[in-house]
């Protein structure tokens, strides 16, 4: 009884404190928050919305994905800041960081109120506030809890437990001193939100020129960012020895990089499946958003061990072959962004075992030197057993795709 009263007291005491801070954050910084709108020229209507905030008297931070359409088709869209009361101002893009989904914009309207950037991250469990304009409903402030860095993530992200919703993208998350700890970027549903750390914002500000560059220059910068990023992601995997483990008679990676996660699954042996299978997959599933039709930066591998001991070899082979008859890319890309896949297929000796190996490549139309690669291999059936290995790489150079394929072919083999 006493315990309950105590708990009640704590809650009653805590509630007004949170509300006070949230209120003061909102009241003090309401003017430093704006809505970013991408307006389609022909229809004069909103095509995308997001939030943005002032970091100096004329510079705004928002997400790259909010303004991506403007970069994709410059002449078709206008970038506007909605300052309320029909006050709309045209925005200029100063710099972007597609890897961390950030954009730096300039407004003609100077603003005295600005957010200050935090010099360090809060402690885990500390109260934070996320600001933005969810679903075009007006500016809101949402309290949440800072839960450290997102684990096993290649891209640095803060994990904030709180309702970050579509439209709040580009808005700031602040600590209790109203200092920006990061930029709202994504949600995994159920109150799990992700925020780009303030360090990335600082890097963007430090690297930016004061004048707005041409769109083509921006695209050139994006290409450089993508090239650097794929190099950073692949070089540790290419230089280090892969930890392997058996899957049937095949060898598959157990651990190749901290940000690559692996999963496994097998059919129930008691059932009559015809073919018993065990599958494993590994991947880095976080993607880089380039435009509504193109995402990149993903890496995934799949492995399948098949055993059809009760089948006739011909029947086994028929079903085995069907499993490799179709394969698709893992990242989203339309014909405006990539060429069609070109493939080479052959029977190759891999560690002494004859295998059907298929290698397909498509090139990025806007970003020269970048390719999506798809690899699929199946050992030639030895009796009623087979082993399929597969990987896709999105947005990599020819050198890295080839080096990765070689490494993969050396490591992922059939042990006889």
């Amino acid at each position, binding site marked *: 009884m006493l315990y309950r009263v105590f708990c009640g007291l704590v809650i009653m005491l805590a509630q007004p404190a949170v509300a006070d801070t949230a209120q003061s954050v909102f009241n003090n910084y309401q003017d430093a928050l704006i809505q970013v709108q991408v307006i389609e020229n022909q229809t004069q209507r909103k095509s995308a919305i997001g939030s943005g905030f002032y970091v100096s008297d004329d510079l705004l931070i928002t997400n790259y994905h909010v303004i991506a359409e403007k970069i994709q088709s410059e002449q078709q869209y206008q970038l506007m800041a909605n300052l309320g009361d029909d006050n709309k101002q045209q925005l200029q893009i100063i710099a972007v960081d597609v890897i961390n989904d950030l954009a730096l914009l300039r407004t003609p309207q100077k603003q005295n109120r600005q957010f200050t950037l935090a010099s360090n991250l809060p402690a885990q469990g500390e109260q934070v506030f996320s600001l933005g304009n969810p679903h075009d409903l007006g500016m809101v402030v949402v309290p949440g809890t800072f839960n450290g860095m997102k684990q096993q993530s290649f891209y640095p992200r803060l994990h904030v437990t709180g309702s970050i919703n579509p439209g709040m993208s580009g808005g700031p998350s602040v600590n209790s001193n109203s200092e920006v700890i990061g930029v709202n970027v994504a949600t995994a549903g159920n109150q799990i939100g992700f925020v780009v750390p303030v360090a990335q914002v600082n890097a963007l500000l430090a690297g930016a020129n004061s004048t707005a560059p041409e769109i083509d220059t921006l695209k050139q910068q994006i290409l450089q960012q993508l090239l650097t990023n794929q190099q950073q992601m692949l070089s540790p995997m290419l230089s280090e020895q892969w930890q392997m483990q058996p899957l049937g008679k095949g060898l598959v990676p157990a651990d190749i990089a901290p940000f690559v996660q692996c999963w496994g699954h097998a059919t129930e042996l008691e059932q009559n499946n015809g073919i018993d299978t065990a599958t494993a997959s590994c991947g880095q599933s976080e993607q880089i958003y380039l435009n509504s039709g193109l995402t990149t930066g993903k890496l995934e591998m799949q492995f399948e061990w098949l055993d059809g001991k009760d089948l006739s070899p011909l029947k086994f082979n028929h079903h085995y072959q069907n499993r490799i008859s179709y394969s698709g890319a893992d990242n989203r890309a339309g014909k405006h962004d990539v060429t069609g896949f070109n493939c080479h297929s052959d029977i190759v*000796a891999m560690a002494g075992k004859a295998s059907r190996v298929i290698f397909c490549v498509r090139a990025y139309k806007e970003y020269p030197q970048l390719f999506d690669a798809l690899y699929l291999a199946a050992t030639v059936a030895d009796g009623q057993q087979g082993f399929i290995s597969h990987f896709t790489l999105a947005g990599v150079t020819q050198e890295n795709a080839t080096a990765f394929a070689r490494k993969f072919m050396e490591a992922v083999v059939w042990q006889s």
Partner: protein
Amino acid sequence: MAILIELLNSQGRVTERHKFNQPQISLGRGYNNDIILLDPHSCAEHAVLTLNDQQQWQLTDMDSVNGMLNQRGQRVKQQPITQSGQQFTLGKQRLRVVFSDHPVPATQRLQPAERLFQWLGSPLVLIVALLLVAISLGYEFWLDGIGEDSQWQKQLLLIPFLLLMFALWPLLLALWARFSNREPRLKPLLALTFCLLVIWAGWDILAALLNFNLNNSMLTRGLSYLLPTLLLLVFFWFSFALVNIQRRWLHIGLTLLFSSLYWVYPWLEYSDAHYSPQFEHQLLPQVLLLRQPTATDIFMEKTELLFTNTAAKAEKDRVEKAAKRSNAPEA
């Protein structure tokens, strides 16, 4: 000189041919006539064909109800026969009067493939072909069936219906021949169709072997276009020869038209190479691998071309887009 009267059906084809040496021939529905008409629109004593003193034949209407029409469709009472082949209509019955010195068309040569057709017409060939096709269908069902939910045994019941479906083409052709007063020759047509299916199944096996062993080679690719096309050309050529199409241009035209379906269909099919790549995926058991597998290094060298080709395509697209952008009026 003898005279002939040919009765024609509504399409103008001869159904009866009568030859007379007497100077007077009566036509009508009555049983006392020299030519007894069956058409209910003709009268019992409808018309009479007589040879006059000047040795000229003439056809005279016997005051019939529906009269007598000449070649131009005009009703006439009496018409001299000035030339061989003149046509008349009595009631609804069409007829033609022909002199015995009327020229006949040139003799039709026997089809060069007649011996093949005779062989195809033997019941044994048809039964063997049917059986082989049924077995290959059963084999496909067996191959596909896997696991405890498999129903391949039940699917075998579909085989007779599938065979019937394949028989539709020869049935259609035979029906057409029958209606155009040609010999239907259903049995050789059926045998031809099922032989094609057997050969096609054989080609599938050969293609699998070739694809497995010689991927991407010009030989396999060339054969996989050439052989099926050739098979279809031969099949349709003989199909139309069996129903005895005389006009050469029609025979060639129909053969090319039907064979071209093999090319048109894949051409119409939409393929989304941006998302799902197309590649050779043939696998067969180890024993059927008749060559040394390629070394990894050589395989990887070959992939260099993929990068070069796709990059060139992307570059071309970029240039086109840039040209379009610079041409577009300023927004």
